[in-house]
């Protein structure tokens, strides 16, 4: 008899991801989001969560999903990262999965270094695979900064241009 892990499953694109239920504060529908100027592309803005202002990251953009469709099924997972609440937009989230510990494999070596070190394991649910992630790790300061650098060096988009401009004005 092994213990079951309680996992909140959510979908991004065609994959099912999972986070430990203890990491998730709540799941809400996507309200009006107030965009904040100069924030990174994957940061949607801020929302009012019952009187608290929390920032919202589009996890689909963060995971590099190409096509982002806004549907009524979209949800925001509210998680706590470094004592601050952050909202994550996902395609859909509804189920709580119970996965026995024995059915969880360690992540393949390929995930361990580089960008994907937030994958903590892969759970098997019948013929479905659930990718278990540590959300706090996705949103850690250093991680985000690295992502920004990555964006700037890879694609000289508006961010890089802006940086260049401010460089002139200084």
């Amino acid at each position, binding site marked *: 008899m092994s213990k079951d892990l309680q996992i909140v499953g959510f979908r991004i694109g065609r994959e099912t991801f999972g986070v430990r239920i203890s990491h998730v504060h709540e799941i809400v529908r996507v*309200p*009006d989001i*107030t*965009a*904040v*100027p*100069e*924030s*990174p592309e994957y*940061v949607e*803005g*801020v*929302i*009012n969560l019952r*009187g*608290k*202002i*929390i*920032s919202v*990251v589009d996890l689909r953009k963060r995971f590099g999903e190409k096509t982002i469709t806004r549907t009524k099924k979209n949800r925001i997972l509210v998680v706590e990262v470094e004592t*601050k609440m*952050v909202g994550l937009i996902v395609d859909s989230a509804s189920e709580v999965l119970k996965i026995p510990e024995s059915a969880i494999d360690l992540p393949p070596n390929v995930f361990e270094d580089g960008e994907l070190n937030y994958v903590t394991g892969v759970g098997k649910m019948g013929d479905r695979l659930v990718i278990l992630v540590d959300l706090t790790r996705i*949103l850690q*300061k250093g991680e*985000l900064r690295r992502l920004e650098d990555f964006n700037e060096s890879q694609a000289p988009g*508006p961010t890089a241009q802006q940086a260049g*401009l*401010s460089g*002139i*004005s200084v």
Partner: protein
Amino acid sequence: MSFFSDERSSELRELFFESATELLQSLNENGLELEKRPGDEEIIRQVRRTVHTLKGDSAACGYQELSDLAHQLEDLLTPEIASSSNGTLADVVLIAADTFSSMLSAYRGNLQPPSGEELRLQILALTSKPSKATPYKLQARFAWNEYEQMVIQDAAGKGETVYNIAFGIDQNCPMRGAAMQLIRNVLQDCGRLLAIEPDHITLAANLDVVEAAIATGYDAQWIRKKCKIPAVISEVLVERLAGPAESSDDVLDIVQHVTAELHTENEPAIRAEEVITVTPETSSNGHSSQAAAAPSAESAGSSFSNVPETVLRVDADRIDAVLNLVGELIIGKSMLHQSINEFDKRFPKDALKGRFADAMAFQARIINDLQKSVMKIRMVPVEQLFRRFPRVVRDVAKSCNKEVALVMNGQDTDLDKSILDMLAEPLAHLVRNAVDHGIESPAERISAGKPAQGTVKLDSYHHGNQIVVEVSDDGRGIDKNKLINKAIECNVITAADVPNMSENQVLELVFHPGLSTAAQVTNISGRGVGMDVVRTVLNRLKGTISIKTAMGKGATFYLKVPLTLAIIKALLFRVTDRIYAVPLASVMEITRATEHQVHVVDHQDIVQMRDEVLTLIHLNRLINQHTKAKRFFVVVIQLADRKYGLVVDQLIGEEELVIKALDDHLVSTDLVSGASILGDGTVVLILNIPNVIGRFGRTLKMVGATA
């Protein structure tokens, strides 16, 4: 050994630190007073009371080093040491304040406190002085109590010769108790011992003077010779008493009573010593000793008695928690307001409407009062900030050999505690600057026809919804040419810019990092970082700073800060489909304009308003839109000496906003100073005007220049 549980004692320590900071402040103030009036006994007594309280409290918290030092200092605080020290006592007190302060911060950080060796040496230097100076002036009071007087009188009545003898005990004599015994033996050899003070060996531990009365057949000469015990007695005073002792006035009795009372205290040795040290004064000036003795008894009784009970010490976090709740309540109020408005529209004829409105108005009033009361709790008088400056001015003036007087006004102006705390550093910098750079040396001043003593003024007052703190000096003023030259030298501006710069723009250069007009970098100022810090802090506080100066007449800095940080009156407007807010205090006026009124000068959109030219800031750039509307509103903002116009699509109105920080690393931007939630739940961003103008006013220019 601790009598309290860990939690209790840490709470106790917190309290101690709190009160100790205050004690040190008053020590600083008293030290400065003492410097002005070195002999003032009232001040010395105040200092002693302060040091005594500090000693007791620190000992209770187990901070032995501090307590010991305070104890040593306490010994020093007597009128005669003050008068014999030629004013150096004030220095010692100030050094002590510094030493204690660094010890306290060490204790606070659980570190080994500094030894305070310098202070110890200073104290020693002063304590040893009087012992060198006074041996030849051994003074005794011979204050015998009633019984002793009776005995003396009785002996005199019998025709016996009565002598009062005072022994000055050698400073280097290690065993005072033994000395006491020797004295007794000698006295008994000389004649019949009528009275001796102190009358018990255990009280003699730190004793300097022993007094006695004997009835004897020997003459004074013989007694004097007999009483000189080498290495124990340094001085003997023999006084022939023809009749009853004269020194029995009431004052002395009081001193005696105090002595007697103090003997019953838990620290008999120290107390005895204290009273003894006032002894010499007694014979010359009886009244002062009465005054001196009384407070020492009082301070021994209750060191906490001077804290008024009506003042509560509350952790700032608790007040902030209440303030946050009030903020939520205000949001709730506007939510309710909105729903009722909707209800009004839907059921215009419902009788419930009136009752809703009444309840709403009632609730609004209460919430308003509640908010004001909570804000008031956070308000503290500016005096708390100002009171540290006399010391700063004195130290800086002393180190650069200037004579500077500090004049302070408006100390009772109230300001939010957090703003006050943040203002401390910039203000200290400005004051140091005023003394170091502003005020000239006395010789220079006299040759300029000014009094040798310079004046630095601190003032604070309300100005609308803001508080103004003024730092001014009557020194040489800011040399604009020097500033320009330095700025060109540092490549901040080019020589071509100079003719186009307004006076204020030139003065603004002062705040540029790395620019200092000081010829020399000293430990006080001159590295050119400080003014940059001043402006940064002011920006963070949503405040402004401006300068007025006249060559040879001095300079004035005006620091304008909002009354509070938590709730602001804001103007709300819409740009495209988004709502933004700006602090109402920064809005000068609002006007309309059309496309045709916009001119382009130097690649910058401008619009003329009456006889002024406004630089337009297109706020839709915030979301990377560049469309231009045909008709729009212009919100006129004044920043430094220039006016700007924010182009907005639609005005919404003014509202009280509860500011919520947007310090999340995900959305950190300096264009936005915070966010707030409106009644309908919408999140609105509050723009940080100086940064928005800086960014969009300038990038526009750059884009134009590169295109």
